[in-house]
């Protein structure tokens, strides 16, 4: 019962958040909060799926890191301020218009057709198995990370370091030499 309630809550958060990301047009800040909602929902879905470590990671990485980073980026790129920049372009962060939404709708339709076709195949082939009880995945994940997937683990650490340095270098203000 807990599971079902939690899943329903998560699904509602995901759906509402995703739609918010797509349709909130006035303020990118609100879209960010909508994304936060959706990501929270994904964390809940992870919990329902028994991925306890992933759920906590989702919280730490997205809520604590990515979303705040997004919010920072929004602030640093002018937020919702409305005026013209030096090139005469409107500085309002363009959020799209009817034309783009129609194009997006067509594309989404196309890809939905494809995915639904694939999912139909999957549903045909799927045989239900007995679900295991919930158990802690932390130890197993740790063991897997440093045995089977150790190369990917190390490479990802280098990737993160590169991203850190790269982001710091790229976002440096123009003209600063330090």
């Amino acid at each position, binding site marked *: *019962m*807990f599971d079902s309630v939690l899943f329903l809550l998560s699904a509602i958060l995901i759906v509402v958040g995703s739609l918010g990301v797509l349709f909130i047009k006035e*303020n990118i*800040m*609100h879209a960010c*909060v909508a994304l*936060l909602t959706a990501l929270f929902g994904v*964390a809940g879905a992870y919990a329902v799926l028994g991925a*306890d*470590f992933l*759920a*906590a*990671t*989702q*919280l*730490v990485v997205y*809520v*604590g*890191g990515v*979303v*705040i980073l997004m*919010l*920072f980026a929004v*602030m640093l790129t002018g*937020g919702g301020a409305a005026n013209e920049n030096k090139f005469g372009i409107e500085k309002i962060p363009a959020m799209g218009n009817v034309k783009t939404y129609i194009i997006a709708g067509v594309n989404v339709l196309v890809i939905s057709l494809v995915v639904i076709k694939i999912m139909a195949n999957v549903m045909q082939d799927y045989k239900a198995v007995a679900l295991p009880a*919930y*158990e*802690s995945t*932390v130890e197993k994940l740790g063991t897997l990370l440093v045995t089977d997937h150790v190369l990917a683990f190390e490479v990802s650490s280098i990737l993160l370091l590169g991203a850190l340095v790269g982001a710091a270098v790229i976002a440096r203000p123009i003209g600063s030499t330090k």
Partner: protein
Amino acid sequence: MNEGLISFLSQFDGHKAFVKMISDFAGTDATSTISFFIYLAACLAVVGVMATIGGLGTYAERKISADLQARQGPNRVGPFGLLQMLADGVKMILKEDIIPSAADKPMFIMAPMLCIVGVFGSLAVVPFSSGFILSDLNVGVFYLLGISSLVGVGIFIGGYSSNSKWSMLGGMRGASQIISYEIPVTLSIIAIVVLSGGMSFGTLIGGQGGFPHEWYILHNPFTFIAFFVYFIGALAETNRAPFDLPEAESELVSGYHTEYTGMRFAFFALAEYIEVFVVCGVAAALFFGGWKVPFDLGTGEAFSALPPIIAKNIGQILQLGSFFTKTLLLYYVVIWIRWTLPRLRVDQLMTLCWKYLTPIALFNLIMIAVWAYAFDGKSMFELFTAMGSGSTGGH
């Protein structure tokens, strides 16, 4: 998955009998329903107690600052001014709820909620005693870190949505400070996780004992350093002095909650005080043995003369006392620091985090891992005693 209150309660016959009775009455298995209601009750209790503690925090802050400044402090409402917080609360509730016209209204409303949600969400894993923990998640500390970072988002959005430059600056400062200091704090916590071999608070506290020499803070020199890194970082994460830059009243009026009034402001204040309590509790659990009581009195086996239910509950109460004593002592230290040290500049704040605490914490993590590998996880005192008995062929 859910070790905690239910598993503790289900040891007792009374619980089983009650479940059986309700199941018979309803005709279906009512275990989970009853668990749900027990949880509900426990959560409400915790929220209530914590809100009280948060309120008492404001009182303690005033009283201690008055002590430090040789003043009287609140002394009119109730004995020793204890009811001052109630008076404040009433004032807050009755105040007009002002939303600035230029504010981003939905987010302005949402910001204090996010703070409160983050803090109360983290209470779910705070180990008050071996039995009274709402949920002993196996990723407990990790979960606590994740959920409490909602506070940062709340502060940021509060600062942004107020549409005021003071609030904006405060919010930006708060968010950057919180995500920066999360790194040394997390690294210090991971160091303890490496030592104990688990992330749930049960494992973390179970590796320690009732006496100081069995605590992780005295486990080896690096954990000793790790505690101070954690504590400094935690002060910065909760925006406490000397890191209270987001709400620096001399620079930013009142920071991110400048524009807030009434209960919304109270939420922010309450969130801050409860978060201080939470980080102090985590510090107590990680470094000071948590709810462990000396001589294993906490298990209640020492009182086996009494009926088990009473014995166990006496043990639980001793554990609660142990935990709260440690936590509140740390709480006192936090307040003491606030009224003693001057505030840092922003660049000093960032320098402290990135140039000192983070490298120290990294070094600590590596050295603790080395220690755990080299000495097989033994603490310094165990090594000393092993050396003492080494001549007789111990080990």
